[in-house]
């Protein structure tokens, strides 16, 4: 019964935190307007925001809720004192289980769907001689123009029409764009989004998607002529109507924001690119270390406070 109560309380705290943080992120992310920041950093920031609710609720649950229950909750239950699982934690605990099951189902469904579609596209595919270490395959005509598929072993699929339509330089740049997505693990990130569902997050995910496309454009291009070639490839491939939509866990070269991307590429300027600030990963280290130190020092009182709050939930 003790373990069961512990699980119910932990799940309740997890689901409450997850929903509260997700609602806060969904409402507040638009206030974030990074100017003069590299698109790669914007994409990283948006990804961090999108996954923050899940990450924070898991960390808080395992670092505070579970230990506070184990250390401070009496093992024996006095029903007269109200030491039993209330209807609310039971219901919320079930909601949490439902949320976890739903998330797992979404991930599995996305992976299975992608695998099925990609297997069909790969029938009769042959390697493309590009000199790159990543597997690049020339696939069926009904496949999207250029697509990055797979999470663990990513591949770049290039349709026959694309090879026929693009010049050598244009094709190389389009492939570089997809390789930039691969290096940023964008397919894995899309799968992570499937694992943390919450209503109202679609726009944040689209903003991330746009930023990641622009970041991949930036990574592919290193001169003005590269930028023009990539823009030309984008315009040419936008004319191809895909017979079949790409699965969720795949990244296509042609996206909805074609005109914005072309305009941006045509205005490409090395000095402008160099001026943009990149938010480095180590920027987050000092605040994380400071927070960890603070929590370590005040761990006892924090656990007591957490326990008080969970007691209030249980009763």
């Amino acid at each position, binding site marked *: 019964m003790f373990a069961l109560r512990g699980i119910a309380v932990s799940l309740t705290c997890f689901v409450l935190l997850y929903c509260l943080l997700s609602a806060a992120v969904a409402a507040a992310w638009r206030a974030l307007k990074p100017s003069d920041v590299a698109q790669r950093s914007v994409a990283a920031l948006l990804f961090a925001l999108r996954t923050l609710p899940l990450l924070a609720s898991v960390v808080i649950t395992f670092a505070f809720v579970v230990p506070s229950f184990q250390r401070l909750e009496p093992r024996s239950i006095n029903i007269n004192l109200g030491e039993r699982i209330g209807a609310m934690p039971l219901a919320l605990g079930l909601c949490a289980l439902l949320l976890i099951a739903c998330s797992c189902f979404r991930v599995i469904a996305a992976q299975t769907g992608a695998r099925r579609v990609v297997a069909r596209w790969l029938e009769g595919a042959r390697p493309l001689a590009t000199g790159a270490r990543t597997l690049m395959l020339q696939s069926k005509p009904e496949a999207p123009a250029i697509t990055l598929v797979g999470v663990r072993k990513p591949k770049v699929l290039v349709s026959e029409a694309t090879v026929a339509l693009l010049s050598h330089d244009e094709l190389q740049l389009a492939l570089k764009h997809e390789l930039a997505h691969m290096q940023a693990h964008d397919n894995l990130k899309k799968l992570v989004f499937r694992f943390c569902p919450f209503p109202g997050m679609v726009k944040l995910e689209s903003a991330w998607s746009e930023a990641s496309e622009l970041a991949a454009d930036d990574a592919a291009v290193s001169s*003005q*002529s590269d930028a*023009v070639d990539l*823009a*030309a490839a984008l*315009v040419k491939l*936008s*004319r191809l109507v895909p017979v079949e939509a790409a699965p969720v866990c795949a990244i296509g070269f042609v996206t909805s924001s074609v005109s914005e991307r*072309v305009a941006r590429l*045509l205005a490409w300027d090395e000095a402008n690119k160099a001026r943009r600030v990149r938010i480095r990963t180590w920027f987050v280290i000092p605040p994380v270390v400071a927070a960890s130190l603070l929590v370590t020092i005040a761990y006892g009182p924090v656990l007591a406070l957490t326990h008080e709050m969970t007691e209030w939930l249980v009763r």
Partner: protein
Amino acid sequence: MTKSFSIFGRGSTPHLGPFEQQVLQKLWSHGSATVRELLADGKIHQAYTTVMTTMDRLYKKGLLDRVAEGRAFRYTPRHTPQELQRVNALESIRQLLGSGDASSLPLSYLVEALSTHDAQLLDELQLLVERKRRELRDQEKIREQR
């Protein structure tokens, strides 16, 4: 050319007349107004009662809100121009899809219109790309000549 608006969810009263549109435009620029305030602007050359009747009609069509102010009413637009435009577009699409015997036919018109629009946009983008390419080539030539 006179444009006509269709009204939110009211298939039976489909359009706004030119004077109704003019009054609505004036109210959007004012924010809110009484009949007297609209006339005081000097841009509407109609009788007081005509303006009053028109505003009352717009109120009944669900486009204006009103509150009593002395012996008159103060009218406020219920929707922004953008909201009205959006709903109007949706209503037009709904009517288009609902018309005709073959249900796929209006949809094919829509797809055709969108494809034409896309093709035009891509043609424009293609021109921009080619122009930029020419510029770069010319710059390269100038550099080589130096």
